[in-house]
């Protein structure tokens, strides 16, 4: 595969997905080449490969013009280190710090070496994702440890500390605002509160249970994670999934996108005092969830995507019902869009609030729906489609303003596009089985899955051991890249607008805390 002037000798491992191994120095050169051609770093993680006399591994997934490239470098068993990538791709910063906290693999030359996922649950010299670290060690309670926030000093500057428990129903996280009056000078998030050891939990699991866990990395993106995980496992096991199952997976993914977008559009109205918007969109969302439950047996489609296919089918009556509801919701969302468009307070609060300009978005790697609202025109369903998206012709929604209004506009456009896709999928669903059991795995193998979830690209890398159990799973949520942009987007805004800006991104805590 060529990037820039170079052939990087990567091998295709499925559609639009590539695999390569190289020296750490060459990894750095590849990162530069990807940056130069306008690509991005998507994910970065580590592995403990000491089982067969090797050391550790560092892995990166790059978004390139040819698709997603998964590149690894072998590192020493003693004091493993690789060159810092955050000076090329700033979004690597927290991923590198998490990799150190979990595995003790250092990014050499990194500016920021503060801990990230480690609060006080384990000691500084302990690395829970190393294979010789127990899943459930005897825990000795440790006192709380301070986190070195970056301080802003000067006349009239003061700090507001919020969280980890918030006033509303929000996931746990800490936000440290430095303000003058009501203006935000700096915001720094401290996350990791929801860290519950998901990656360690995967180790030794059978493949089917792994799919259930993958779907619970971030519950609001259940189908995205479950599909990405299954794609990785099926790639590793060289399995062929029945066509109807792939179409049903896309149906589930679009149902999930519509559900989340409807909920967010309601909350965005609510956050500017338009309770009408909340009531209307949540009425539509509830109708949608109930239909999902009655057709597929679960309101959020949990555990409906399984290795080898899907666990549930749809009949003709169900297709007609879902199609009719999709059309009704489309029509009602259009009416509500007219209200949002005409509502002067809402427009005033949405416009020019929480701005991420396209240049900043490109520089820091803003991705997914928030990225598309800041002119980052990437959508795997459009540019790097897997079956059935290659036959669905997805049209991508983009905006340039990068404010709350733009993120709302992208959601409106995507609701309609997803509803159109749902009707299209229902009409063209191929006949046949919805599941084909995987052949047992008899040799160690690996695979990568990549799905455009409602929030952005979800990537799951999997290594299966020779006994057929999971050796290592790394699930990646797009919130990793987007959290730092939320911090930039609120600069100069007033504190009371923070909930609105935060909701317009609606990032996952659990998905990145793991």
């Amino acid at each position, binding site marked *: 595969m060529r990037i820039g002037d170079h052939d990087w000798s990567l091998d295709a491992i499925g559609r639009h997905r590539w695999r390569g191994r190289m020296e750490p120095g060459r990894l750095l050169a590849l990162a530069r080449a990807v940056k130069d051609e306008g690509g991005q770093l998507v994910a970065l993680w580590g592995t403990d490969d000491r089982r067969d006399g090797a050391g550790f591994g560092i892995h990166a997934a790059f978004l390139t013009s040819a698709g997603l490239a998964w590149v690894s470098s072998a590192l020493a068993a003693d004091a493993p280190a690789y060159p810092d990538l955050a000076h090329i791709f700033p979004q690597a910063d927290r991923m590198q710090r998490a990799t150190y906290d979990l595995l003790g693999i250092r990014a050499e030359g990194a500016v920021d070496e503060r801990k990230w996922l480690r609060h006080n649950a*384990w000691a500084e010299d302990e690395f829970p994702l190393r294979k010789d670290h127990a899943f459930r060690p005897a825990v000795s309670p440790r006192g709380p440890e301070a986190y070195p926030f970056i301080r802003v000093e000067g006349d009239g500057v003061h700090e507001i500390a919020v969280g980890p428990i918030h006033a509303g*129903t929000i996931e*746990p996280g800490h936000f440290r605002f430095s303000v003058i009056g009501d203006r935000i000078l700096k915001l720094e998030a401290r996350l990791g509160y929801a860290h519950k050891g998901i990656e360690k939990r995967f180790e030794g699991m059978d493949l089917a249970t792994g799919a*259930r866990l993958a779907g619970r990395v971030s519950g609001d993106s259940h189908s995205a994670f479950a599909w990405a995980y299954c794609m990785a496992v099926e790639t590793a096991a060289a399995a062929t999934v029945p066509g109807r199952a792939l179409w049903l997976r896309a149906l589930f993914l679009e149902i999930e996108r519509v559900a989340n977008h409807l909920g967010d559009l309601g909350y965005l109205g609510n956050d500017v005092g338009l309770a009408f918007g909340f009531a209307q969109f949540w*009425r539509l969302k509830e109708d949608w969830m109930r239909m999902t439950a009655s057709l597929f047996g679960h309101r959020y489609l949990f555990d409906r995507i399984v290795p080898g296919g899907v666990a549930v089918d749809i009949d003709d009556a169900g297709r007609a019902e879902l199609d009719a509801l999709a059309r009704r919701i489309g029509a009602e969302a259009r009416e509500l869009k007219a209200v949002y468009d005409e509502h002067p307070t809402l427009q005033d609060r949405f416009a020019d609030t929480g701005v991420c300009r396209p240049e900043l978005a490109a520089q820091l790697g803003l991705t997914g729906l928030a990225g598309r609202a800041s002119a980052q025109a990437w959508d795997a369903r459009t540019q790097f489609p897997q079956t059935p998206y290659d036959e669905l012709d997805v049209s991508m929604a983009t905006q340039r303003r990068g404010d709350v209004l733009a993120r709302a506009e992208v959601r409106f456009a995507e609701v309609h596009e997803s509803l159109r896709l749902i009707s299209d999928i229902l009409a063209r669903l191929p006949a046949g089985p919805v599941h084909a059991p995987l052949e047992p795995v008899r040799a160690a193998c690996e695979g990568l899955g990549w799905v455009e979830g409602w929030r952005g690209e979800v990537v799951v890398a999997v290594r299966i051991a020779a006994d057929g159990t999971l050796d290592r799973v790394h699930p990646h949520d797009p919130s990793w890249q987007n959290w730092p942009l939320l911090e930039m987007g609120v600069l100069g805004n007033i504190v009371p607008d923070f909930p609105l800006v935060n909701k317009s991104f609606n990032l996952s805590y659990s998905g990145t805390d793991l």
Partner: protein
Amino acid sequence: MAATLILRKIFKTGFVSEPAPHADAALRTREQALHAEILKVFGQAVAIRHVDAGSCNGCELEIHAVNGPHYNIDGMGVKFAASPRHADVLLVTGPVSRNMEASLKRAYDAMPEPRWVVAMGECACSGGMFGESYASCGKVANVIPVDVEIPGCPPTPVALLQGILAAVSAGRPHAAG
């Protein structure tokens, strides 16, 4: 004009707290029973403080849903409070991550008595898929006393309401300590 469009939509929508044919018949009796129960116990209303102690955020989706127009919880006297100091019920989701253990205890300690703790979802009831590990304390009862456990992954809005009812109608709550 936004106002005209809003009014037109409100009239067209009508009342949706009216149940849909299949799932809602059960819900309505529940709503009425719950309302009566809350009136009996509190004379007026019950305030709930939710704490996410490390959930996957799936349970939160249903807490949001229960605040929607189909369920009309305000009409039943159920309110979500912004602080544990204003709450009768602590609704906890997720396994308790070790990174949230201290905060959860602090929220519980801040509540006035009488107080009830409702563990919502498989994770809060048993540790769920995440279990007990270097990073997770497992179920909520491992960290603070629990009055009611609502199974489900996530529990449906109806199950959530039933669990809250079970909590507030169940005799004496936990004493301090």
